[in-house]
C-alpha cells in the first residue's frame, strides 16, 4: 500500500524531539566534558575554555589524590561508601523482596510502597529528615534513644565529632543512601519472584517444603541472574550520583571530606567552592564518564539485550 509520507520522514518526525534533547544533554556534554578537562577553565570564564593546557588537570588530580589529605579522604570515602552501600542495596533489596513476597498481597503492597517512598521524596525533604534524626541534641531521634537507653551521657553530633570520623560519617551516608537505593533491587527481585508460576510454589509447599526451603531452593536461584544485573546497575549509580550526599555535606550532617564521594567532589569543585575550578572538575568527571560507559556496556551484556530486541509489529 502507498503511504502519504516516507518512512524516513515519519520516523524522524516521531523521534526528533527526543533525539534533540539526547544530543544536547548527553552526547554533546560527554564531548564537552572531555574538552574542558584539557583546558584551564575556572570561575566560568568562558574565554579560558579555549586555552588548552594538555594533561595538566589530570596530573594535578593524581597529585592531589596522592598528596592532598582532603582529596585522599574523598578517594577513601568513595571506595568505602560504594562498597558498603552496594552490599546494603543489593542484599537489602533481595531481603525486602523475599519478605514482602512471602506475605499476603495487601500487606506486601503496603511495605513495598513504603520502601519506595524515600526514592520519591524530594531530596531536600529527605535530607531534612536525617538532619533532624541525627541532630546533635536530645531533640534528635538518634541521640534521644541512646540517652534513654543510657548508652551516652551527652548528645553527640555524630557526623561531625572528629573522634568518631570517618566511620560515623560513612555509616550515616551509607544508611541514608541505602534507604533510597534499596527499593531498586526490591522491585526488580519482586517482579522476578512474581513471574514464578504460583502452582509451582504451592506444589512445593504441599510436598512439604518449608518457607526457608522455598527461599533457598526456588527464590534465590531464580534471582541469580538479576542479582548480577542489580549489582552492576547500583555500582554505576553509586559511583556517579550525589544529590543526597550534597545536602548531607552542605548542611553539616556529616564531615565535609568523609561525606564526599568522587562524584560530589566533581560537583563541589565546579560549583560550590570559593574558587570553582571547572577544568579540574571536568577531568575528575571524565573518570565518571568512563566508568559509566564501561558499566553501561556490561549492563547491556547482562541483560542479553540482543534477545530483547524483537521485530516491530506494525512496520509498513
Amino acid at each position, binding site marked *: *500500500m502507498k503511504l502519504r509520507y516516507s*518512512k*524516513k520522514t*515519519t*520516523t524522524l518526525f516521531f523521534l526528533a*524531539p527526543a*533525539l534533540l*534533547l*539526547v544530543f544536547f*544533554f*548527553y552526547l*554533546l556534554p560527554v*564531548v564537552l*566534558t572531555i574538552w*574542558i578537562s584539557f583546558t584551564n*577553565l575556572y570561575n*566560568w570564564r*568562558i574565554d579560558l*575554555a579555549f586555552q588548552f593546557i594538555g594533561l595538566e588537570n589530570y596530573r594535578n588530580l593524581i597529585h592531589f589524590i596522592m598528596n592532598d589529605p582532603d582529596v585522599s579522604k574523598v578517594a577513601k570515602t568513595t571506595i568505602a561508601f560504594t562498597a558498603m552501600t552496594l552490599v546494603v542495596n543489593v542484599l537489602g533489596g533481595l531481603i525486602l523482596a523475599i*519478605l514482602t513476597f*512471602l*506475605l499476603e*498481597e*495487601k*500487606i506486601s*503492597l503496603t*511495605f513495598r*510502597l513504603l*520502601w*519506595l517512598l524515600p526514592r*520519591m521524596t*524530594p531530596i*531536600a525533604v529527605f535530607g531534612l*529528615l536525617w538532619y*533532624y*534524626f541525627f541532630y546533635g541534641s*536530645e531533640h534528635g531521634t538518634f541521640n*534521644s534513644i541512646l540517652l534513654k537507653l543510657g548508652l551516652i551521657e551527652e548528645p553527640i553530633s555524630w557526623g561531625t565529632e572528629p573522634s568518631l570520623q570517618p566511620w560515623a560519617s560513612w555509616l550515616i551516608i551509607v544508611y541514608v543512601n541505602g*534507604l533510597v537505593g534499596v527499593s*531498586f533491587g526490591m522491585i526488580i527481585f519482586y*517482579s522476578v519472584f512474581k513471574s514464578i508460576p504460583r502452582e509451582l*510454589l504451592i506444589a512445593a509447599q504441599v510436598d512439604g517444603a518449608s*518457607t526457608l526451603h522455598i527461599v533457598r531452593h526456588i527464590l534465590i536461584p531464580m534471582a541469580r541472574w*538479576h542479582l548480577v544485573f542489580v549489582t552492576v546497575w547500583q555500582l554505576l*549509580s553509586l559511583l*556517579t*550520583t*550525589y544529590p543526597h550526599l550534597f*545536602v548531607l555535606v*552542605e548542611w553539616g550532617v556529616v564531615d565535609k571530606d568523609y561525606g564526599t564521594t568522587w*562524584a560530589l567532589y566533581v*560537583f563541589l569543585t565546579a560549583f560550590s567552592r570559593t574558587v570553582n575550578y571547572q577544568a579540574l572538575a571536568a577531568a575528575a*568527571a571524565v573518570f565518571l564518564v568512563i566508568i559509566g*560507559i564501561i558499566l553501561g556496556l556490561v549492563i547491556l551484556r547482562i*541483560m542479553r*539485550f540482543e534477545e530483547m*530486541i524483537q521485530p516491530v*509489529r*506494525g*512496520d509498513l
Partner: protein
Amino acid sequence: MASIASRILRALRGESDRADQPLARGRIAAIILAVLILASLPVVSSYIFLVVTSFANTIVFTPFIEFAVNWTVDNYVKFFQGKLSPAAGQVYSTTDIVMFIVNTLIVALGVTLVVLITSVPAGYAISRIGFRGRGALMKLLILLHAFPGVALIIAVYFIYIYMRSPLFQAFEYMASKGLLTDEVLASFDIAYSFFFVIVARASLEIPMSIWLMKGFFDKVPWEFEWAAIVDGASRFTAFRKAVLPLVKPGIAALAIFAFLAGWEDLIYVFVFLPQMTLATFIHNQLSGGSLETTYLPIVAAAATLYLLPTILFFVITQRLLLEAASGGFKG
C-alpha cells in the same frame, strides 16, 4: 486501615483464602511482619516526626519528649508571612513565599510537558516502526538510562552560559534600538533560566520515559492502527486518533512520574535557577551561613508542604509507581 489490620490478623491465624494464599503463614508470617515493621520504623517515624515538628515550637524528633513543647500552627503562618524566625523580622514577603511555590510548580509542570512531548512519540516510533538503527537506539537509551546525567552537569552548565551571551546580546541590541523595554529584557533572563532548567532536568528522565512508553505502545493491538491506515489515514493521524487514546493510562503514569521528578529536584534548580524553589529555600535555610538564625520548626512546615503533592500522587498511583520505578524492566 481496618481492612489491613483484619487481614494481618487473618494472616496470622492462617485463615486466608486458599486460592490466594500467602506463602508464609502463622508464626513465620508473624516473624516476617515483625522484621519488616522494625526495619521500617526509623523511616516511618521520621516522616511522622517531620509533620509533628511542623506543629511545634521546637524540634520534636523523638518519642521521648522531655522538654517543653507548645503545639501551634504558627510555623505555617510565619512561613507564609516570610518571618522565618521569631527573633528575625520580615525576611521575605508573602508574595516571595508564594512565588517559591509557584516556581517549584513551573519547573515540575515544565518537566512534565517536555517529557511528554519528547517521550510519547519516540516510544511510539520504537514500538512500531522498523527504522534503521532502531536496535542501536534502544541500546543507547538503556546505556543513557544507566548513565546518570548528573555527572555531566559541568558541560551542561557550560552550554547554559555559552548560549546565553549571544542570545542576550541580541536582546540587548533590540532593547537599545527601542524594540524591547528593559522590563521585557529582564523577564527574558528569567525565562531563559526556567527554560533551561526544565529542559535539562527533563532530559534526565527521557531515556527511561521512552522505554516506559514503548512498553505501553507494545501492548496496544496493531489492528487498531491498521484499520485506520487502511481507511486512508496517515501514520500521524492513526497515531493521534487510534493509538493515543488507548495509551492514556500510560501517559498519565508518565506525566505523574515526570512531575514528581521535576518537583523533587534540588541539584538542577540550585545550579541553573536564580529564582528560589521550595528545594532551594530549604537548602538555603540549612546551609552554611544562615544556619545560626534558622528557625527549624518553620523549615519543617515548609518541608511538610513540599512533601504533600508527592504523598498525594503516591497514594493515588501506587501500582503504577511500583512498575515505573523499575524503569520498565520486567524480569
